[in-house]
C-alpha cells in the first residue's frame, strides 16, 4: 500500500451531450513506475490525465496522491507537472526564462535557479541553448525544453500527454530511448498517454489499455502482448489473428476447422471462445508432412526484418503470418502452432440481447424501431427480451429501407468474416457478423427478418 503514489477510485466523467468519457475507473499508480494510458482516440485517456493535472473536474470519484485528496485542488497547487502534446512553450520567453518560469514563481533564489536550469538543460542535452528564442528551435528541441521546464520543478509525478506524437519517426525513436533513461535517472513517477501501442510497449513498466471510457486490461507490456484478455486488446496491441473457436475440453481447442492442443483450462466443455494467434507464432513450412493444417499463400510482402504473408487455409480461413523466410505466392504450405502460442479468451457475448416491448402480437419495439416478428401470442405492452444471432442482422446501404440506423464503431476480422460493432442512434450496441466490407464510422441501416427475432417474455418482478 505504501508504495502507491496515486490512487484513483470510481472516477466518472460525462461531457455535455450525455456521452460517458470515463466510466467508473479504478487504478493505482506505484511510486517511481512508468505507467502508460493506452487507447484509441476518444477512449478517455487524455481526459483522465487532465483530471490528474487538475484541468478537469470529475463528476464522481476521487483521485488521491500520497493519501491526500486531489480533486478540488486547483492545478497550480498540485505537486505534479505536465508535458503537453504540442510543447506549449511560452513564445515570448527565451529558453532560460521558459525553464525558470516555475522556479521564479516559487521564489527560488536567483543563483539556485541558474544552477538548476543548467543542470536540467544538460540532462536533456540542450546546454548552451539558454539564450535561444524558443520559436527558432526544431520540434524535437522544443519538446526537450518542454520536458526540462516540467522536471526542473522536481515534481513527484510527471504527466506526459502524447509528447512525441508531433515528431517524425526517427526523432520519436531517439526520444523514446532518452525518455526511458531520464525516467531511470530521475526516479520520478511518469504517467504517459499515447495511442501508439509500440511506444507503450517500449517505454512502460505498466500499461493500462482503455477503450470507451473503461479500463480493458492492466499489466506489464509482456502480459498485455502475450495474454490479452479480450479481442479489443488483442486487436489493438500488435498484429493478430482473432478467430472464433470452441473449447472442446481442457487443453484442447478447435478453430479454423482443426483441433489444437493448448495450455488453457477451466472454460468447460464445448464452450465458445475467441482465439488469438500472433502472426509470428504460426510456424510455416513448405513441407506438408507433420503440419497441423495446410493452405495456399495469397500474398507475400517484405517488411524489412520479416515477410508478411496472407494464407488461405484448407478450410477457407485467412491467416496473417510473419516469417523470416518468404514463400512463393500460390504455393501450398504446411502450418502448425505451438500450444503455448494459442491464447484463448472468454467470448464477451455469444448473441445480441435487447430489451423490448410488444406493440402487437407480431410487432416488437427495440433499438428505437418497430420490427415485425413471428406471432408470439403476447399482448401489446408486454416487456420482452429479444435475442438475435450475430449473423442474422442485415446491414443496408439505404437508410430508408431500414428499421433503424447506426454507425460502425469497431471492426474485427475473424479469419473468414468481419465482426462489427454498431452503435445505433438510441445509443445501444449491435454486434454483426458479415462477409461484406464496411468502413469505420459508416452509417448503416439495420434490418432483421421476422424469423430471426427470438422473443421471450421478461419475468415481471413486481
Amino acid at each position, binding site marked *: 500500500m505504501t508504495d502507491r503514489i496515486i490512487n484513483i477510485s470510481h472516477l466518472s466523467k460525462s461531457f455535455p451531450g450525455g456521452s460517458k468519457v470515463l466510466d467508473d475507473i479504478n487504478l493505482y499508480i506505484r511510486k517511481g513506475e512508468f505507467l502508460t494510458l493506452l487507447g484509441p482516440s476518444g477512449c478517455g485517456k487524455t481526459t483522465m490525465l487532465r483530471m490528474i493535472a487538475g484541468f478537469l473536474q470529475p463528476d464522481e470519484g476521487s483521485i488521491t496522491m500520497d493519501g491526500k485528496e486531489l480533486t478540488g485542488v486547483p492545478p*497550480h497547487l498540485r505537486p505534479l507537472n505536465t508535458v503537453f502534446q504540442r510543447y506549449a512553450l511560452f513564445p*515570448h520567453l527565451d529558453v532560460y526564462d521558459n525553464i525558470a518560469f516555475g522556479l521564479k514563481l516559487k521564489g527560488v533564489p536567483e543563483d539556485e535557479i541558474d544552477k538548476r536550469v543548467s543542470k536540467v538543460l544538460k540532462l536533456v542535452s540542450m546546454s548552451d541553448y539558454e539564450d535561444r528564442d524558443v520559436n527558432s528551435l526544431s520540434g524535437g528541441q522544443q519538446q526537450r525544453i518542454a520536458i526540462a521546464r516540467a522536471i526542473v520543478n522536481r515534481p513527484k509525478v510527471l504527466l506526459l500527454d502524447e509528447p512525441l506524437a508531433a515528431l517524425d519517426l526517427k526523432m520519436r525513436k531517439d526520444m523514446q530511448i532518452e525518455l526511458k533513461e531520464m525516467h531511470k535517472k530521475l526516479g520520478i513517477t511518469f504517467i504517459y498517454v499515447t495511442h501508439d501501442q509500440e511506444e507503450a510497449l517500449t517505454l512502460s513498466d505498466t500499461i493500462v489499455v482503455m477503450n470507451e471510457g473503461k479500463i480493458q486490461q492492466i499489466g506489464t507490456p509482456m502480459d498485455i502482448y502475450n495474454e490479452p484478455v479480450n479481442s479489443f486488446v488483442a486487436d489493438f496491441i500488435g498484429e493478430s489473428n482473432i478467430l472464433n473457436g470452441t473449447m472442446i475440453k481442457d487443453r484442447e481447442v478447435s478453430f479454423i476447422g482443426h483441433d489444437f492442443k493448448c495450455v488453457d483450462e477451466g472454460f468447460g466443455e464445448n464452450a465458445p471462445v475467441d482465439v488469438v494467434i500472433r502472426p509470428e507464432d504460426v510456424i510455416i513450412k513448405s513441407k506438408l508432412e507433420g503440419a497441423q493444417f495446410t493452405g495456399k499463400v495469397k500474398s507475400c510482402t517484405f517488411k524489412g526484418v520479416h515477410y508478411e504473408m496472407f494464407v488461405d487455409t484448407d478450410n477457407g480461413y485467412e491467416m496473417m503470418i510473419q516469417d523470416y523466410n518468404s514463400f512463393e505466392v500460390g504455393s501450398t504450405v504446411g502450418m502448425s502452432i505451438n500450444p503455448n502460442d494459442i491464447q484463448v479468451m472468454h467470448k464477451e457475448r455469444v448473441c445480441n440481447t435487447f430489451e423490448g416491448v410488444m406493440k402487437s402480437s407480431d410487432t416488437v419495439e427495440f433499438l428505437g424501431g418497430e420490427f415485425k416478428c413471428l406471432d408470439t401470442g403476447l399482448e401489446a405492452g408486454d416487456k420482452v427480451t429479444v435475442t438475435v444471432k450475430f449473423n442474422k442482422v442485415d446491414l443496408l446501404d439505404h437508410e430508408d429501407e431500414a428499421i433503424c440506423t447506426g454507425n460502425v464503431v469497431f471492426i474485427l476480422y475473424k479469419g473468414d468474416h468481419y465482426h462489427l460493432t454498431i452503435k445505433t442512434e438510441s445509443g445501444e450496441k449491435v454486434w454483426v457478423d458479415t462477409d461484406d466490407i464496411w468502413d469505420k464510422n459508416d452509417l448503416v441501416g439495420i434490418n432483421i427478418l421476422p424469423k430471426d427475432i427470438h422473443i421471450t417474455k421478461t419475468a415481471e418482478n413486481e
Partner: protein
Amino acid sequence: MMTGKKLFAKVYLWVILAILYAPIVFIAVFSFTEAKSLGNWTGFSVNLYKSLFSGNMQNSGGLISAVQNTLVIALIAASVATVMGTVAAIGIFNMRGKKKQTMQFLNNIPMINPDIITGVSLFLLFVFLHISQGYATVILAHITFCTPYVVLNVLPKLSQMNPNIYEAALDLGATPYQALRKVMIPSLRPGMISGFILSFTMSLDDFAVTFFTRGTIGLDTLSTYIYADARKGGLTPELKPLMTIIFLIILAVLLFINIRSAKNNNNKKK
C-alpha cells in the same frame, strides 16, 4: 503589345496614387506660404508654422484646446477600449458553437453601422437617461465604437496561440491571474497594440459621433473645430501646417510599425 500594356498599367498606377495623395501634397505645399485663401501662392514662408507654435493667431486658444481635447479623448478611449476589447475577445474565444458565432456577429454590427446612426442613437440614449452631455459622454461614445475593433484585432491572436499555454502556466504554479499577466497578455500584445492604434486613429478623426454627443457646453475636438471654423467663413490658415504635421507623425508611426514587423518576421524565419 506587351510594352503598351505595361505602360498603361504603370500610368494607371501613378494616376491612382496621384489622386490619393494630391490633397495631402496640396495642403503641405500651401502650408509654406502666407496667403489667407487656399490656392494663392504668395511666396515661400514659414510664418504659418511660426504663428501656429507661438499661438499668435486669431482664436488660437480654440484651436489649441481642440487639439488637446482630441488627444486626451483618443488616449483615454483607446486605452479603455483596449482593456475591454481584450477581455471581451478572451470571453468570446472560449465560447462554443452558436453562441460564439452570435457574439462575433454582434461585435461586427457596430463596425458596419454608419457613424451618423451611432452618433444619433447615442445622443438619444444619453438624453433618455438624462445624462448631461460633455467630455464624459464623448469619451463613452468613443469607447463604444472603438471596442469592437480591439476585439477584432485580438481574436486572431487568440486562435494562433497554443491552447495549452494558459494551462502550462497554471501547471507550473501560476495562479490564474499570474497566468493571465505573465503568459496570456504577452502573447496577445501585438493584437492589443494594433487594436490600440486603430482605436486611437478612429477616435482622432471622428466627427459624426463627437458632434452628437458633445452636448452644448462648447466642447470642441479638432474635427468639430474645423467644421465650425469652415462655417464661419474660411479656414484658419494655421490649420494647413497643423494638418501637415499630423500627417507626418502618422507616416512616421506607420513606417516604424512596418519596419518592426518586417524585422520580427525575419527573426522568426531564422
